[in-house]
């Protein structure tokens, strides 16, 4: 019990450190808030005229849940960089040389990044509402849709922590940052997979992001849901399955990797 208490207290101290960063240097947070909104505006108003949603419907309403999903992906490299930087600067070693609760460092990091992504999501919801997106179904379904997004983000945070602990070269960080957009595009986030060459469409549908976004479109009742394939038909269960699978793999790997820094 005492160990758990210190894990929470120390974890909060680590999270608090990030919150102090936001106050002292708000620019990255503001930029992080504006960037997805900018992308949304770009797609909605510059490219949106050329887009058609299969089965009809407003492209902007189709786009916004996709942007929510993209926003969950955007934090991945930020998490990795934060973990990497602490290791490189010796801050991780300092934490490890202290009699603090061991798992607290990772716990604090994950909570801080979750708070960050919730803030970004809130900004994007406001922008989405302003652009004409609305949840059309019950409050329960709407809440479940957001919970699925948060679950995906939580899984990606642990993937990011793991990558930050194993990737030792700056090139790996750059690679991940560069890959965020292609991985985002190779999905149903911006366009329906049915409009792509069939093999690419299949890959896009099996992108874990697609399941979450398809599920949220279904739950929000926004256009562009579904598709004929099995994966598209089972969007909501897969929106649970994918993140839980990622977590089942990368949470233990990250914790193990952190413990094994002493090898």
């Amino acid at each position: 019990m005492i160990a758990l208490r210190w894990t929470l207290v120390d974890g909060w101290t680590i999270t608090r450190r990030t919150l102090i960063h936001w106050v002292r240097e708000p620019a990255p947070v503001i930029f992080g808030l504006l960037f997805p909104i900018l992308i949304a505006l770009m797609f909605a108003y510059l490219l949106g005229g050329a887009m058609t949603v299969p089965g009809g419907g407003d492209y902007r309403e189709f786009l916004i849940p996709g942007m929510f999903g993209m926003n969950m992906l955007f934090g991945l490299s930020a998490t990795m960089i934060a973990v990497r930087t602490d290791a490189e600067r010796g801050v991780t070693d300092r934490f490890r040389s202290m009699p603090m609760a061991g798992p607290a460092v990772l716990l604090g990091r994950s909570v801080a990044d979750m708070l960050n992504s919730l803030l970004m999501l809130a900004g994007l919801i406001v922008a989405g509402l302003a652009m004409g997106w609305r949840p059309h179904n019950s409050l329960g379904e709407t809440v479940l849709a957001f919970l699925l997004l948060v679950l995906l983000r939580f899984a990606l945070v642990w993937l990011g922590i793991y990558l930050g602990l194993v990737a030792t070269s700056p090139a790996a960080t750059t690679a991940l940052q560069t890959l965020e957009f292609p991985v985002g595009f190779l999905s149903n986030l911006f366009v329906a997979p049915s409009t792509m060459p069939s093999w690419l469409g299949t890959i896009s549908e099996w992108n874990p992001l697609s399941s979450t976004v398809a599920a949220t479109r279904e739950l929000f009742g926004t256009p562009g849901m579904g598709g004929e394939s099995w994966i598209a038909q089972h969007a909501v269960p897969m929106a649970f399955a994918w993140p839980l699978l990622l977590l089942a793999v990368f949470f233990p790997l990250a914790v193990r990797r952190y413990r094994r820094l002493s090898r």
Partner: protein
Amino acid sequence: MADQLAVHAEGLRKRYGDHQALDGFDLAVGQGTVCGLLGPNGAGKTTAVRILATLLRHDGGHAVVAGFDVAKQPIEVKKKIGLVGQQAAVDEILTGRQNLEMFGRLFHLGARRARARADELLEQFGLTDAKDRAAKTYSGGMRRRLDIAASMILAPAVLFLDEPTTGLDPRGRSEVWDAVRTMVDEGTSVLLTTQYLDEADQLADRISVIDHGRVIAEGTPDQLKSRLGGDRIDVMVHEQAELVRATRVLGGQAEVDEDRLLISVPVRDRVAAFTEVAKALEQANIDMADIALRRPTLDEVFLTLTGKEAA
């Protein structure tokens, strides 16, 4: 006996793949003393410190720090040590005070005591004026002092300093040296690794020279210097031609530094040799710019022991 030592390592081994980083490493640091661990890059200094500071597990041998076994009682060891690694491990965005407060909380001092301790340490390390500035605006020496202050929050019995002045300018180095002396005065035992011989000479009571993962010489700075065969006489002349003639007079053991017009000879009997050399040079009509009797530098000791130039 072992109980009275701040750090006691026996036969430590650590292997990374094919590389034997530590190969039977022995070390004893007396309480309240400063031990300098001196060695070239890759000699195993950092590996030794990381094992003693519980960051790394060793493959063989055993080590006791502040009375606790590093492998079996790591938590107890962590409560007794401070670690200052090769880089200043502070948060760049937080202010000096916020950094110390954060580390104080992680040492489980509680919010109020963490703040009070932060203010005390800022005062002690001369950072009070800069306490509300982000650490990234600090000079190298200030950042290092903040780093050392963070390691001193619990007033640890043993402090590990891994190359604390690497990359600092001379002013930053002397700031750090002062900070280390302050802590030693308060009774902290220090293990300091360094590639700078003058740093070990300045700070350390005893020096262990490490190469290829084991200690190859140990003693006080004076003892290590005498191992090189005692004293040296340096003769400086005015011009190149005289350098050649003087070298001929002083014999085969002389080392010549052509740029500085300096000849250095090892001697056994200090005073007699000095008179003899001065007389011989005078008889050969050599016009000396300077002549001096001195102890060998640690650089010379180091070169003799390891066959490598330091740093």
